């Protein structure tokens, strides 16, 4: 691949110079006798090959190719949650949202190990893998994503998710829910149970309702969508509700927490849910998005707090609880940044830069991030929310006067542009994270 032609030439010497590090490594290739052609400038193990981890691995190597980077990820193909709602709607194949690790291993020289990281010893700085290997690190970067809180809703455990899928990790769960939607008869009801905050991808459930409505409107127009919600308001709410009304009439009904929207019990066999005040609802297709927490390996590393999420230093994304362990993505407490693929990618770059700087003995840079999050009401009607984030007094802040929502009175032409840009964004972030050419 020839498109890796960043600021720095391929020569390591010039690359270090580009970072202002050349003087710190006067004779880097002569300082050890490991028998390898390239002396290691440090060992990094990255756990999790999603938006955060894959990006961090790539950008550490771009920052300093002499750093030894190993990426641990059980799956050979990563399926993204972004655009998985289009798969549910029958507008895309699962393959079209799958990404490989070829660029990382072949272009950037990342060692990719397809195994599950099972345990971490933060004192000995060792990771044990499901294949029996142990990996030693100087710096560990976790991008563990989310785990479901099984049984937080009575009756909803892993076994139940095989009958009433969450589809909140893309892959087989996405296909399972798609099959249920395809099996619906015209006039049937699709029910979604949506958790309270915080959870992965705040606007995701509402985009899902939109795109399922797009499918049902075409094939099963008498059907209904019932969203039972554990909160009283949601991301881009005004834009979503206006879009629903304009495109789907009364097909989508949203029930807020205050109107008895919170699901407390699931009977996956009967596809039935019960809400807080005892109302029962029966579905033909049932999607339960349960409450969540940081992926379990974060617990094993000792970086989670009582909330189940991971507090981090906002400048470096190093854990506030364990030295030399950096955590990015949905697992972190980084509000006001959302739990999104975009944010995970952006945080991955910030942590990568901090790790490269730390090995070089220099201070990390203050990060500035922009975030744009697109949602589709239908494949030709897009809306977005944007923000610019900085660190001020050791807090991540959303810059006032910047960002915000798409205009509520935007003409159709703008909605069409935003739908096209949503695809452009997906292609770009897939290329930036995994090198996928779409």
């Amino acid at each position: 691949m020839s498109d890796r032609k960043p600021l720095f030439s391929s020569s390591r010497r010039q690359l270090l110079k580009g970072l202002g590090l050349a003087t710190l490594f006067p004779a880097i290739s002569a300082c050890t006798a490991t028998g390898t052609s390239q002396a290691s400038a440090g060992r990094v193990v990255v756990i999790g090959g999603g938006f955060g981890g894959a990006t961090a691995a790539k950008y550490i190597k771009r920052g300093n190719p002499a750093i030894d980077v190993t990426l641990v990820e059980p799956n050979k193909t990563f399926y993204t949650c972004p655009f998985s709602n289009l798969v549910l709607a029958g507008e895309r194949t699962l393959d079209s949202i799958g990404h490989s690790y070829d660029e990382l291993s072949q272009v950037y020289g990342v060692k990719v190990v397809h195994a599950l990281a099972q345990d971490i010893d933060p004192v000995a700085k060792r990771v044990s893998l499901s294949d029996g290997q142990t990996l030693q690190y100087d710096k560990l970067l976790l991008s563990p994503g989310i785990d479901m809180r099984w049984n937080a809703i009575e009756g909803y455990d892993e076994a139940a998710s095989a009958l009433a899928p969450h589809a909140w990790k893309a892959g087989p769960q996405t296909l399972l829910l798609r099959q249920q939607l395809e099996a619906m008869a015209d006039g049937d009801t699709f029910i979604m149970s949506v958790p309270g905050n915080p959870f992965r991808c705040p606007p995701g459930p509402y985009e899902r309702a939109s795109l399922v409505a797009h499918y049902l409107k075409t094939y099963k127009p008498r059907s209904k969508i019932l969203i039972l919600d554990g909160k009283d308001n949601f991301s881009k709410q005004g834009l979503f509700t206006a879009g629903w009304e304009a495109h789907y009439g009364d097909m989508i009904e949203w029930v807020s927490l205050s109107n008895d929207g919170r699901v407390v019990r699931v009977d996956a066999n009967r596809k039935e849910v019960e809400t807080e005040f005892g109302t029962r609802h029966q579905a033909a297709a049932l999607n339960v998005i349960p409450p969540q927490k940081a992926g379990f390996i974060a617990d094993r590393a000792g970086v989670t707090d009582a909330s189940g999420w991971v507090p981090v230093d906002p400048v470096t994304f190093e854990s506030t609880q364990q030295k030399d362990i950096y955590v990015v993505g949905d697992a972190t407490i980084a509000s006001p940044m959302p739990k999104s693929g975009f944010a995970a990618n952006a945080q991955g770059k910030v942590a990568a830069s901090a790790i490269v700087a730390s090995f070089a003995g220099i201070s990390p840079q203050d990060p500035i991030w922009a975030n744009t999050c697109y949602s589709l009401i239908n494949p030709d009607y897009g809306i977005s929310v944007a923000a610019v984030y900085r660190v001020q007094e050791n807090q991540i802040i959303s810059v006032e006067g910047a960002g915000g929502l798409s205009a509520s009175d935007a003409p159709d032409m703008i909605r069409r542009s935003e739908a096209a840009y949503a695809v452009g964004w997906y292609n770009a972030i897939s290329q930036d994270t995994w090198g996928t050419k779409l």
Partner: protein
Amino acid sequence: MSRSILPHKHSLHKLLLATFFVGMASIVHADEIPQAQVSLMAGTCANCHGTDGQLAGAIPAIAGRPATVLEAQLLAFKQGLQPNTTVMDRIAKGFTDAELSALADYFANINKD
């Protein structure tokens, strides 16, 4: 950032002080922002424009375009002067003029594939 020190209903003294700092902020030149910081800041652009701003599609590539063109475009976004903008106006408003200028230089200096 100058924005955070702008008071709403304060004495003339503080207003003058604020004006002074706003003046200070505006004379930070693009070339005074450390290159490592610019590079980190530019990382966020790749989320939509591809690694190094190279990817062309619905969203245009930005690598290798003249710095003056990129800077003028970014400032037009920031000032709301670009008609039919979807999101770049909302994003450009979060950066200082000097930062936008530094980003324009950064992407102008990347070879276009």
